[in-house]
C-alpha cells in the first residue's frame, strides 16, 4: 500500500493540526499524504461498520480527498460509512483508542474545505444515514438523519403544504448534516434565517464516544443553548447523527420579479430603497454583467445583456404580497430599472431561480477555473465595495463575476482564472484574500454561509482578536478537549486545551499594590 512509512496511530490530532497549518504551506500538507494508520485500527473499523462500508483502496479513497473546494486535496487514511448512531460511536471510540483524528463529511459540497481530510484521519461519511425518522406537522418539526438531502426534506413535506426554509443553492445534493455543520443559508434566509434558526435539536456523538441529545422538539430546554453553539461549528464539536428540524407551513402566495439595470449601482440603490420602504423580501439576489453572461451560456435563459439584474421574491399572505410586490416593482423602476419581468407562471418562475442557483457552475462555461468567495458587508456599502473589487480585478488583470444575496450583503465574487497559466491560481487566491480584507475593513465578515473551513482559517486572525479566538476555543475544549474532531478547521493556529487563556499574569508588585498599569 502506497509510499512512505507506516505511522502507527499516534500521529495525534494536535500534530495533524500543526501539520495542516498554516495553510499557505500547502506543499507540506501534500508531502504528508503518505501517513497511514495501523492494520489493527483498520480491522477494528471494518468490524464496526462492515467490510463494504470501510474504504481503504487508494483509488476509492481519492473520492474523498476534497470537498467542493477542490484546490485543497489530501487523501484520508481510511473512510468509514456508518449507518447508525451506534456505529458512529464505535468508530469514534476506535479512533480515540488509536489516537486518530476524525473528519466528518456529508455530501462533500462544502466550499470552504470543511470536509478536507487531515493526515492520517478517519473520514466519517454520513451519506448512508439518510432516513427521515419522524414528522410532526401539527407541532412543526421533523427528525432526520444527517445524510438526508436538503431538498428531499421539502419534497417530502410538500404534499402536506409544508417546507423546510433554508435553501442553499446546492440544495438538490447537499445534506442536512452538512447544513448543520456549516450553518448554511441560501437565498431565502433574508426573511427566514439560516440553518441555526431552523434546528431545534440534535443528537451528537462527542470525541469521547458519548452520545448527547441537545435541545429537541420542545423549545427552551433549561441550560446553555448548546444547539445554537453546535450549528455552524463545522464538525469540530462532534458528529451529528440526528437532527430535529423546524418545518413551516408554505406561504399563501409568492410573487417574483426579475429586473435589469444599467449597472450594479442602480440595482444596489433599488435594493436599499425597497428595504427602506419596510419591505422584507423573502429573497433579493443580484447578478452583474459577467454573471449574467455565464448564466445565459449555461442555462439558456433569455436574459438581456445588461450591467446588473435583480431577482426578488416576496411571500406571505396574498394581499400582503400583492401590495409589497407592486411597491417593489415601482421602486425598482424609479431606481432606474431598464426592464421588469414578472413570470407568467410557476414554471417560468422556477426557470428564473434555476438561472440564479446555477450561477456558480455556470461560470465554468466562461472560464476554465474559478474561485468563490463568501464575504459579507453592510448593505449600505455594497456599491463602494463592488467598486473596490472591480479595482482589484483590473489591477490583477483577472475577471470577477459577482452573484450575491443583496438583501443581506453576502457577496459571492467569483474570481476567474486559468490554472494552466503559470501563477494565475496564486494570483486569483491573492485577489480573493484582498476581497475578504475589503469586507473586513467595511465592517463585515469573511464568510456568510460557506464556513471558515480550511480555506479561510488564515483570515480569522484579521477578523477576530486573540481574546476572541481564545474564548471560542474554550467552547471547543468543552466538547472535544483532545482536539480530535476535524482539527485544523476554523482556527488559524492549533489551540491546546488545558492552558487557560489568561489575559495576563499580574506582576507580584502589582498584586501588592506597589505598581499599577497605566
Amino acid at each position, binding site marked *: 500500500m502506497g509510499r512512505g512509512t507506516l505511522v502507527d496511530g499516534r500521529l495525534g490530532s494536535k500534530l495533524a493540526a500543526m501539520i495542516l497549518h498554516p495553510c499557505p504551506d500547502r506543499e507540506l500538507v501534500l508531502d504528508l499524504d503518505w501517513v497511514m494508520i495501523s492494520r489493527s485500527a483498520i480491522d477494528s473499523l471494518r468490524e464496526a461498520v462492515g467490510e463494504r462500508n470501510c474504504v481503504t483502496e487508494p483509488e476509492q479513497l481519492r473520492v474523498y480527498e476534497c470537498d467542493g473546494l477542490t484546490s485543497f486535496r489530501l487523501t484520508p487514511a481510511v473512510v468509514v460509512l456508518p449507518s447508525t448512531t451506534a456505529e458512529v460511536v464505535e468508530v469514534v471510540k476506535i479512533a480515540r483508542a488509536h489516537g486518530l483524528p476524525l473528519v466528518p463529511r456529508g455530501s462533500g459540497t462544502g466550499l470552504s474545505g470543511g470536509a478536507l481530510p487531515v493526515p492520517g484521519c478517519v473520514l466519517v461519511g454520513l451519506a448512508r444515514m439518510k432516513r427521515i425518522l419522524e414528522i410532526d406537522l401539527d407541532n412543526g418539526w421533523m427528525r432526520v438523519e444527517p445524510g438526508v438531502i436538503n431538498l428531499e426534506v421539502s419534497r417530502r413535506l410538500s404534499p402536506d403544504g409544508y417546507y423546510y426554509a433554508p435553501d442553499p443553492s446546492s440544495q438538490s445534493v447537499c445534506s442536512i448534516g452538512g447544513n448543520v455543520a*456549516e450553518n448554511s443559508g441560501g437565498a431565502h434566509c433574508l426573511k427566514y434565517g439560516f440553518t441555526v*434558526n431552523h434546528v431545534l435539536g440534535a443528537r451528537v456523538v462527542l470525541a469521547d464516544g458519548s452520545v448527547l441529545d441537545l435541545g429537541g422538539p420542545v423549545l427552551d430546554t433549561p441550560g446553555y443553548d448548546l444547539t445554537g453553539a453546535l450549528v455552524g461549528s463545522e464538525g469540530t464539536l462532534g458528529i451529528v447523527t440526528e437532527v430535529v428540524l423546524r418545518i413551516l407551513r408554505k406561504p399563501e402566495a409568492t410573487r417574483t420579479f426579475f429586473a435589469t439595470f444599467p449597472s450594479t449601482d442602480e440595482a444596489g440603490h433599488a435594493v436599499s430603497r425597497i428595504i427602506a420602504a419596510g419591505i422584507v423580501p423573502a429573497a433579493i439576489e443580484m447578478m452583474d454583467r459577467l454573471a449574467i453572461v455565464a448564466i445565459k451560456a449555461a442555462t439558456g435563459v433569455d436574459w438581456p445583456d445588461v450591467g446588473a439584474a435583480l431577482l426578488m421574491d416576496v411571500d406571505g*399572505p396574498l*394581499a400582503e404580497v400583492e401590495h409589497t410586490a407592486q411597491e417593489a416593482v415601482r421602486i425598482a423602476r424609479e431606481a432606474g430599472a431598464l426592464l421588469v419581468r414578472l413570470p407568467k407562471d410557476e414554471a417560468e418562475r422556477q426557470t428564473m431561480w434555476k438561472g440564479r442557483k446555477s450561477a456558480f457552475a455556470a461560470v465554468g462555461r466562461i472560464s476554465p477555473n474559478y474561485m468563490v468567495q463568501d464575504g459579507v458587508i453592510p*448593505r449600505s456599502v455594497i456599491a463602494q465595495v463592488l467598486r473596490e473589487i472591480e479595482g482589484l480585478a483590473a489591477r490583477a488583470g483577472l475577471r470577477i463575476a459577482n452573484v450575491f444575496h443583496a438583501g443581506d450583503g453576502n457577496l459571492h465574487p467569483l474570481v476567474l482564472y486559468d490554472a494552466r497559466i503559470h501563477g494565475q491560481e496564486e494570483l486569483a487566491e491573492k485577489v480573493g484574500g484582498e476581497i475578504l480584507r475589503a469586507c473586513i475593513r467595511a465592517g463585515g465578515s469573511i464568510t456568510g454561509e460557506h464556513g471558515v473551513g480550511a480555506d479561510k482559517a488564515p483570515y480569522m486572525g484579521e477578523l477576530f482578536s486573540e481574546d476572541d479566538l481564545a474564548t471560542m476555543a474554550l467552547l471547543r475544549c468543552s466538547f472535544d478537549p483532545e482536539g480530535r474532531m476535524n482539527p485544523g478547521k476554523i482556527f488559524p493556529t492549533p489551540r491546546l486545551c488545558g492552558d487557560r487563556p489568561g489575559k495576563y499574569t499580574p506582576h507580584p508588585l502589582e498584586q501588592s499594590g506597589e505598581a499599577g498599569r497605566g
Partner: protein
Amino acid sequence: MTSPFDAPQAHEPRSVAEAARVMEQLAREGKRVAFVGGGTELELGPVPDRIDAVVRTRGLGRVVEYQPADMVMVVEAGLTIGELQAAAREHRQRLALDPPWPDRATIGGIVATGAFGPRRARYGAVRDLIIGVQLVRADGAVAHGGGKVVKNVAGFDLPKLACGSLGTLGLIAGATFRLHPLPEASETVVVPGLSAAEVVAMVSRVRAAQLEPAAAAALRGPSGYDLALCFEGFGKGVEQQTGKLRQLAPSARAAEDAWTRHDEVRTGGPLRVKVAAQPTQLPEVDRLLSPLGLRFAWYPTLGLGFASGAAGEQAAALIADARAELLRRGGSLVVQAAPAGLRVDRWGPPPPSFPVMQRVKQNFDPDRRLNPGRFVGGL
C-alpha cells in the same frame, strides 16, 4: 440584607473598558460576582452562593452604532429595550422582541435570561435576532463573537452561547441586533371562550388557512381561553388576514386590551412559572397547571406558557408533579419567581447535555466566581 444582590461591593462601570478593568480586579481578588441590569429577573434561579461584588450595567447605556440603512444596531448592555426601541422608532424600525417590563429590562438582562414576549411566534427569540456579543470574561478579557452583519458564520456562535447563560459565563457588556421595519398596520383579534383542545384546533385552522400572526397568546379566564392573534404588516395584508380569521371563527372580535391582560400574567407574582411542551399538548398542560390556581398565558404556536399568582398551600407539591409530567413528555417547567418560604426546585433536573454544560462553565469560569449556583444544576 434585603436581597442577595446587595453585596458588600458594587461597581457601576461607565464603559466596556472600565468594566473589563473591574472584572480583572475582581478576578485578582478572587471575588464572587453577580451582574445586575434592570433588576427585573433577579428572582430567576436559586439565590447564588455568597456574592462578594455586584457589577451593575446601568452605566453602560449607549447606542454605540446605528446605521438605519443596514437595520443593525450595536448597543451597550445597560440600555433598556424601551430606549433601544425609541432610537429605532425614529427610523420606523424596531427590535422585534417584546419581553415584559420594557422600561426597565436592559439588553444585557434580556440576553442573559433569554427573555421574550408573544412576538417570538413570528420573529424568533433573542438568539434569532442577536448577531453579535461583547463578553467580558471572568478574567477580564473582552471577547467579541459574531459581528455587525446579519449573515455571518465566521467562528463559533458566542452570541447564542450568551443567550440565556444568566451571567454564569461572563459579563454581557454589549450586543448587536438585526432590526425589522415597524409595521404599517397592526390589529389584534380575539377568539373568546375556547377549551384547551379548541385552542389547539383553532391554531391548526389558522395555520391551514396560511394566516401568519405576528403574535399569539391564549389567555385563560373564567370562561375558558381567549385566543389573541395579532396581525402586522401593510394595511391591505392585515385587513385580509383579520377578515379571513373572522370567517374561520365568527365569534372573533377586536380586543387590543388582550395584551394588557397578557402583560399582567407575565409580570404577576409572587409565584411565576414558565412551562414548555409541544403546542398540541396544551390540554395536558392545562390539566397539570389548573390545580395551582394561577393566571395563565400560553403561546400556542410555540408551546411555551407563563403562569403567575399567589402560591397556594399545595404549590410546591403541585409544581413538582406538573414538572415530572412535563419532563416525561419532553417538556420542562421553570419556577421564575417564588415567594419567600416556598421551597421549590427552580430549574428542575438538568438536561441530558449537562456534562458538556458543566465543562463549558468550568472552562469559562474555572474558579466558579460568576453567579455561582444560580443556573441549572448549580452551574
